[in-house]
């Protein structure tokens, strides 16, 4: 699974992207966030307030209960501020 970070999540995690192999019980976006948060203090800081985090699975906006699978590209970022 490829995991991407954008904006301040990228800065807190300290990575723009990483490979991840979560265990089978990580089934959705919310579960992946909890699992990633335990990886490092930076990850913990990035996911400290899940309400501030948005996600996309395979380049489509996702919700906490969107399923994730090993071949997916999952991105985490703050609410968008373009335009």
């Amino acid at each position, binding site marked *: 699974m490829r995991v*991407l970070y*954008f*904006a*301040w999540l990228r800065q807190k995690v300290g990575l723009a992207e990483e490979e991840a192999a979560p265990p089978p019980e990580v089934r959705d976006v919310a579960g992946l966030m909890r699992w990633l948060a335990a990886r490092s203090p930076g990850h913990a800081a990035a996911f400290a307030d899940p309400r501030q985090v948005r996600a*996309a*699975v*395979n*380049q*489509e*906006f*996702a919700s906490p209960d*969107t399923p994730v699978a090993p071949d*997916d*590209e999952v*991105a985490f*970022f*703050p*609410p*968008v*501020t*373009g*335009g």
Partner: protein
Amino acid sequence: MATVRVQEAPFDLAQETAALAAGRADAGAVASFLGICRADDGLAAMVLEHYPAMTERALARIAAEAEARWPLTGCTVIHRVGRILPGEPIVLVLTASAHRAAALESCAFLIDWLKTKAPFWKCEEFADGARRWVAARAEDEAAAARWVAAAADAPARRRREPERTTG
């Protein structure tokens, strides 16, 4: 049919407008929205980050939604990324139609949806070296939501929800 671009370079409003109207005898109205980097107190630059694999697809979907809702003869959305100085343009939305209501409404729709449904993030850089990620505004969510209500009011028009694909 819509033209959607993400680029670092500035864009040329007159050139984009001419391209939109060229060869379209049926365009009687062109509406545009130009978003500019304001020179707020001490702001040195705005850095626009995006999610390249997703951005153009998100913009194309937003443009397709506008074309499904209004009878447009043309639609252009250009969003810059990278470092942008105060006074420089950030985003351009151009819509053309036979009549003004469709052009004006779709232009407002596009910028409202772009603000909440396209993966861009703004980081402000100040003269004193400080950096600050711009926070999303509740007003932007409200502005985008009114178009969902508008679509619900018009049941003949198909309403599309984001779909998860595995592509």
